[in-house]
């Protein structure tokens, strides 16, 4: 790993206290990426979401969760039991000098502990307190449980995804809805922060993950009272291929007639010709007049046969390069192994090798979310171990004596 500590982040004078679980990791991660000093505050023993896989070398261990690693870079880590009175006192001390506090507890939880915005905002009037929940702090659904699949369902995003002979489906693996919520929370936090820098006033930011998932809007319903159906019809009149087989995988490509043909089909036919695979049926076909609504399966099959043959003679990488060269708007369906080989990402120096001394190895991480000219985003801190910075924060910064520190450890406050 190259020396990156010299780079100053845009938010380096500021501190964020990150009390979130998986619903909010990404929010603090972004502030940390931009240079803020983010303290990940975990319950003694570590965040429960450290139990989420995948795991480094498949070893189930809270210190080896790749899920946790992915969203807790650029943070320092301390443990603190905020349900205990001593823990609450310490949190209040930390709040005094913090700029942001991010939490994702159920609505009312922080208030019940005496740590609501009405209290913390008095301790530090400039504090930006960000609360991330599935449905928001108030309203009829505020106490509803909201795992990923439920929030997607209620956010309107899922109804049209999938195939029509099966239930609609979500994106697999870790919660995408929570990541959307984390992104929105960071946006809200920074808007509130901008305002604070102008006026000195803090803010309470109430983020709804359902609303984050609903950001795409519903123009079809609003303007035409249409409910879009699922993206992968299997019961329609025509079988139309959208995902094609290539030499080593799949490629997603759509064709259409009329005006769209000019943009999407003509360059493709030119490419086929350049490769010596032109098909006279396609070349002479009246694309201008072609209408999916009126055509027959026989026509579709005749159109698709040479296209399928064309795709089948190239690899994903060759098709991607061809799409770029011919300015065609389609991509192969990459999996994570393909992405790791991407020449474009290499050329942009995307990946970051991050040292994990505790594992005696280094791990390749996805790099910056954006390339920022003056103050590049880098991974300057690997994800913290459980309580790794307790000493630094409690003794060096808050000035607890070794005896006091030990007492807190013994009473399991930290």
């Amino acid at each position, binding site marked *: 790993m190259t020396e990156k500590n010299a780079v100053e982040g845009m938010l380096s004078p500021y501190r964020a206290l990150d009390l979130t679980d998986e619903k909010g990791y990404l929010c603090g991660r972004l502030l940390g990426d931009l240079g803020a000093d983010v303290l990940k505050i975990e319950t003694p023993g570590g965040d429960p979401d450290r139990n989420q896989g995948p795991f480094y070398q498949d070893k189930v261990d809270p210190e080896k969760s*790749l899920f946790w690693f992915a969203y807790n870079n650029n943070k320092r880590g301390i443990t603190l039991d905020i349900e205990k009175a001593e823990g609450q006192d310490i949190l209040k001390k930390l709040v005094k000098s913090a700029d942001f506090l991010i939490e994702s507890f159920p609505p009312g939880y922080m208030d019940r502990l005496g740590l609501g915005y009405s209290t913390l905002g008095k301790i530090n009037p400039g504090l930006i307190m960000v609360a991330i929940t599935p449905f928001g702090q108030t309203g009829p659904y505020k106490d509803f449980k909201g795992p990923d699949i439920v929030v997607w*369902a209620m956010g309107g995003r899922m109804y*049209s*995804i999938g195939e029509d002979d099966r239930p609609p489906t979500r994106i697999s693996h870790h919660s995408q809805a929570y990541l959307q919520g984390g*992104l929105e929370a960071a946006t809200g936090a920074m808007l509130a922060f*901008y305002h604070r820098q102008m006026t000195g006033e803090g803010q309470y930011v109430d983020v709804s993950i359902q609303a984050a998932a609903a950001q795409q809007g519903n123009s079809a319903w609003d303007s035409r009272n249409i409910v879009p159906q699922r993206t992968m019809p299997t019961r329609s009149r025509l079988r139309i291929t959208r995902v094609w087989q290539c030499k080593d995988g799949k490629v997603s490509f759509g064709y259409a007639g009329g005006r769209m043909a000019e943009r999407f089909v003509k360059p493709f036919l030119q490419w086929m010709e350049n490769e010596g695979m032109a098909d006279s049926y396609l070349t002479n076909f009246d694309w201008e007049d072609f209408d999916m609504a009126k055509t027959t399966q026989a026509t579709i099959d005749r159109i698709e046969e040479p296209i399928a043959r064309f795709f089948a003679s190239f690899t994903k990488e060759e098709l991607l390069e061809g799409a770029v060269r011919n300015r065609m*708007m389609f991509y*192969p369906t990459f999996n*994570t192994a393909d992405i790791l080989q991407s020449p474009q990402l290499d050329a942009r120096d995307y990946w970051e090798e991050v040292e994990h001394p505790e594992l005696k190895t280094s791990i390749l991480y996805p790099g910056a979310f954006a390339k920022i*000219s003056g103050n590049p985003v880098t991974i300057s801190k690997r994800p913290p171990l459980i309580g790794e910075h307790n000493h630094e924060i409690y003794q060096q910064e808050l000035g607890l004596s070794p005896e006091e520190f030990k007492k807190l450890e013994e009473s399991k406050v930290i």
Partner: protein
Amino acid sequence: MAKKMLEGLKVADFTTVIAGPVITKPLAAYGATVLKIEGRNHLDLFRQGMVPPVGTDFPGPFNPWANRNPAGAFYNTGKLSISLNLAKAKGREIAKQFIMWADIVVENFAGGAMKRMGLGYEELKEIKPDLIMLSSCMQGQTGPHASHPGYGTQLVNLAGLSSIAGWPDREPAGIGPYTDYVAPRHSLVAILAALDYRRRTGKGQYIDMSQFESGLQLMAPLLLETATTGRVSEREGNYNPLAAPHGAYPCLPTRTDRYCVIAIYTDEEWKNFCYAMGNPEWTESPKFSTLQARRDNEEELDKLVEEWTIQFLPEDVVRRLREAEVWAGVLDNRDEWLNHQPQIKRQSPYTAPHGIYRCHPEYRWCAIAVTNDEEWQSFCRVIGDPAWTKESRFSTLHGRQENVEEMDRLIAEWTSSHTAEDVMAMMQAAGVAAGVLQTGEDLMEKDPQMAHRHFYWELQHPEIGRYRGVAPSFVFHEFPYELQRAPLMGEHNEYALKEFLGMSDEEIEELIREGVLE
């Protein structure tokens, strides 16, 4: 009324379609002045009808069609519009003046286009050193794919998101322009940080946003998995992956309730496991060589594993397996373990039931996710404790996972006789996570939570009529936002030229004559 939060902040917005306009939409909602600089030469796709009515020309800027695409009106709420011909030198000159006026410049042309128009950051920086500029495109401003144009609906393929959406036995599902809602949030966070940095240091910033790289942030755990194990995770429908072998296996002494627990996820673990068993001949069979094969032949596999474990005390099995770096544990109470397996929770939520269930009428659906045994009990009570829930194959998490298809069928028998709203209400009241699979109609007309948050704003548009915009997903306790309708094309030509650039009527007349305003 208090000042708006971002009053005084000025944005020159060259963006089109979704991934660009979504960046500046919240800024407009909170009071920033966002000027959409558009024109015939970079007509927003959403200023065009994808399918114009028969007999209309390709819609030009003053063609009424330019103002009638509801998507365009949706993504540009609260902005001002100037229609400027950037193909003309004078048009680019005026664009430059608006850049001088602005605090922030945002564009999402295909990589390199601003530069070709003489509006690249390097050039602009010379005349405005503290400029904050963000360029958002498919794959970034540099590298061999920099200038490749495209849309988010396609980019999700490149970013791996399609490969993990849909059913394992089917093609990847289309998920729409998902990355178009990821990059704008990253973009806005970076812009707001740059504003503060400029306030403190006087320095500007260029932000090169690759929507590809931004989208990969949401794939990070799986990228780390592939980078460290070489394994590639694929789509799983609404289920979660199983390991195989995976379960509790009986040990010595026989006729007691003593088991060892084994969970094998990877082929490497499988090899180690075979080694620990002394590589019996059956492990060589292709029936067990991959996870998929092991899952397909799970019954036979479990029997063979059992034949081995039954020869030892559980402690011995565990010792051997741990030496071979295979996860294993001793179990004294089989049911307890099967219902509580946090240590081997591989993906979240590792649960069953977990899916989308058909309700009444048949085009309505409800999501249900049961995450622990307590919730399973509540779930059973809600559906009236039918006999099947007591069957041993469904009474444990492990059993439910193994018989997931049959279980889902039985659950759907119940859900399909209830409305999705009733299923949600009954489940949530009992502490079980459930949610209606909502459509635009549900969200806009029925959802009381969205109404409570005043998420949808009814707006009046001169050409579209009544339409609805959406608020940000966060609310501030004090400072409200205000959503206003999107502008007509060129609606603020005169206003912006006079108020922001101080032009006279004569100068504006000339611009019209020269076709600079179009």
